[in-house]
């Protein structure tokens, strides 16, 4: 099977958020970047497991600048066979990224296109659905389990307060949630081999942007914690009722 895994670069969870250029850009100074956990831990690893079980190839795709190559090499170190980077500026929109991925996915005729359920920076959860529509593929989101027999996949997906089990034939697109696979740590051999694996840089296609960032802001400062005597729970209930007005 030909498997494509879309991998994104995101700031580490512990990043302190600040802005530049009059609050119109995210300040990347000193930011530690990682591969988006949903892409790395679940989507990429499930694709590798499938390849190990049934044969085939795993290709990763990223849309961004050469600054992303470290994250892309990590994907190769974990076990992807080759990588595509569509050479694009920072801060392009979800639609722009989706269009680039769709172009490459179409050209490669993949059986399954994997995404993480969302990135942990912009939390948009849009690109998988966009690419699926551009490729006219079924899209199964929030997948927590996937088994394949022949060309048919049986997939469990998270829905509000429960699970849904669906069946779908290849080709299809899928977004990965916790449970789809277990995180893999790259070993030294993988890291060495990754240096020799192909990372193909491809120019982007033209896309007209539909959404732009007007400005960023920090959320309002949280006021200090109001400590309540552990003996006096009547006081807490009173405050939740009359001050916070939540009960």
């Amino acid at each position, binding site marked *: 099977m030909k498997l494509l895994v879309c991998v994104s670069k995101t700031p580490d969870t512990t990043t302190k958020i600040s802005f530049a250029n009059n609050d119109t850009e995210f300040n990347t100074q000193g930011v530690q970047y990682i591969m988006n956990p949903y892409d790395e831990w679940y989507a990429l690893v499930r694709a590798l497991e499938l390849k190990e079980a049934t044969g085939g190839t795993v290709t990763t795709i990223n849309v961004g600048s050469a600054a992303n190559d470290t994250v892309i090499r990590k994907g190769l170190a974990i076990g992807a066979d080759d990588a595509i980077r569509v050479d694009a500026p920072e801060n392009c929109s979800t639609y722009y990224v989706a269009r680039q991925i769709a172009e490459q996915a179409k050209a490669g005729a993949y059986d399954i296109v994997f995404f993480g359920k969302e990135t942990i920076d912009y939390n948009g959860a849009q690109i998988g659905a966009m690419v699926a529509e551009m490729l006219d593929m079924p899209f199964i989101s929030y997948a927590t389990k996937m088994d394949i027999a022949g060309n048919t996949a049986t997939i469990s997906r998270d829905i509000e*307060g429960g699970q849904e089990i669906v069946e779908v034939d290849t080709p299809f697109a899928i977004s990965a949630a916790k449970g789809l696979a277990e995180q893999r740590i790259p070993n030294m051999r993988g890291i060495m081999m990754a240096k020799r694996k192909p990372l193909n840089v491809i120019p982007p296609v033209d896309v007209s942007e539909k959404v732009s960032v007007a400005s960023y802001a920090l959320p309002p400062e949280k006021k200090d914690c109001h400590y309540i005597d552990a003996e006096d729970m009547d006081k807490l209930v009173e405050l939740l009722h009359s001050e916070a007005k939540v009960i």
Partner: protein
Amino acid sequence: MVLVYTSSPEGQLKKSAFEAVTYGYKAAQALGTEVVALTIGNVDNAGVLGQYGAGKVLNAAGAESFDSGVHAAVIAKVAEQIGASVVVMPDDSTGKSLLGRVAVRLDAGAVSGVKTLPDTSAGFVVKKNVFSGKAIVDYNINSDKKVLSIAGNTFPPEVVGGDVAVDAAGVDVPASRVRVKEVSTVKGTVPLPEAELVVSAGRGMKDPGNWGIIDELAGHLGATTACSRPVADVGWRPHHEHVGQTGVAIRPNLYIAIGISGAIQHLAGVNQSKTIVVINKDPEAPFFKAADYGIVGDLFEVVPRLNEAIKKFKAAN
């Protein structure tokens, strides 16, 4: 026109549907137009959407189970048919699976998890939380058509009218390529993403057998129970209760965290709660920095005391 798609799991409209119609109604008023609600499949009592401001309710029959491709095709056809410039949907698992597809079909700009009405004083600007609530972005949508999914628990449903008749949407429903085999949902409790009150516990509970006081507290409040990642990982609590970055992200009115230290990954999933209460015996627990109300004490003494206090309060009110 503003078109609101309302998801209807197992044929039932839920609060997220009423919130989306309320948002659509307010946006339509600001834009000087009207709102049409769309339901897909067999839906009980869809006319009730009129109460939240839908001037018209349409139903597309023939797509009983969820397939994002089929639903997106229907929504886009209806949007074109009624000349909708804005399409609104809930930001739930259904809406998030559809938003991008509908945007591509309509050649529209899309923003998910919107938390404000559009500001049209300079373009079409909506706000959204990013970085798990650590920042807010103002997005400007430049395209003629816009597609928005609306953050849950942000626009409380408001009744502004009465039921309306449900008309057939009159569009073809394409064949589905996704075969739904089984749907299982927890009955009797409000699912976490929709819950207004959440009681959550972590490793401080020491043993899964100690959860009785948590269930009792949730029972008194009518709250949904949740847990931290470590206790879900060791199997003390079911996986679907795990809130945090890799679990469910929630934004209830009240989040009570009991015996949870407040690791940054946990906070990322809960820090958009309106009021946070933290009960922990460690005064240095990082969670207190994110708390509105903090109680430093042994949870095995504090929680039973809180249960008594709430029982007393409920009896008096």
